[in-house]
């Protein structure tokens, strides 16, 4: 069960695949992108991305900006 830093918050999860992790915790999020350990992960690679202990995941969504 890896311990992950998700958007700056540590949590223990019993999922080790990125696609599954997103499906359980961010299932309703529609417009987003993901970086794992500060590296962008394209959508088509979610299912092939394994999560390891101490990985950092950033779930990024749109916001207002100048």
């Amino acid at each position: 069960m890896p311990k992950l830093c998700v958007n700056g918050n540590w949590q223990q999860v019993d999922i080790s695949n990125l696609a599954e992790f997103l499906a359980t915790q961010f299932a309703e999020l529609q417009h987003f992108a993901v970086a794992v350990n500060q590296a962008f992960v394209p959508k088509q690679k979610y299912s092939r991305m394994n999560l390891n202990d101490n990985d950092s995941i950033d779930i990024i969504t749109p916001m207002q900006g100048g």
Partner: protein
Amino acid sequence: MWQLEDKTLGSRLLLGTAGYPSPEILQQAITAANCSVITVALKRSQQLNADSNAFWQLIKNSGCELLPNTAGCRTSEEAITTAEMGREIFATNWVKLEIIGDDYTLQPNPFELVKAAKQLTTRGFRVLPYCTEDLILCQRLLDAGCQTLMPWAAPIGSAMGPLNLEALQLLRTRLTDINLIIDAGIGCPSHACQVMEMGFDGVLLNSACAKAADPVLMAKAFANSISAGYDAYHAGILAPVSKARASTPLVDTPFWEQV
């Protein structure tokens, strides 16, 4: 109409979407500005909320081209990652490249900017860099593959208007074949008009509109001023001289005496 990157646009006002009193006022300001491009940003999402969906709908319904920025980035690596995420979310290869070098002035880090621009243009992005008015930096950004440059007028949000007119004029004089869009530091419509009268191609602003007492009316004012400045530049502005020039011909006016 004008050509910006791979798009043909109507308005030369590019509008930022941050800091408005409400989403409704933002929407009304976009309409009043009649702008063709709006800038957007990215943030970490803790969880789904109605606000993020509402904002998505707002920007999609605006009919504007979306220009994602890399606000908050301090290194080329951060900016490149942010740009990639922006491309995936917003389905555009346009990116407003912002890499900040100083917390007080919020001025761009020129070294990281060039490094990131090279990488991003190689990856197929159309990079619109927020830069300073330094001619050499601008030339290096063009060498890196940028086709549009966005030099600042003054620090972000300062509302001071164009500070270094000589350097901005030099940019316009030396870089004739590219779009130059003034980005940052604009405070009032006359600032926007002033840079358009210098021959710049567009103005990107956010705080000057969002933080106005009436953002919707201000958006309209900026649209008018940018249009006026553009027309004035192309109409040929009378050059100033240090002596008077009578507008009415004085010969044979009543009481005119020949010397």
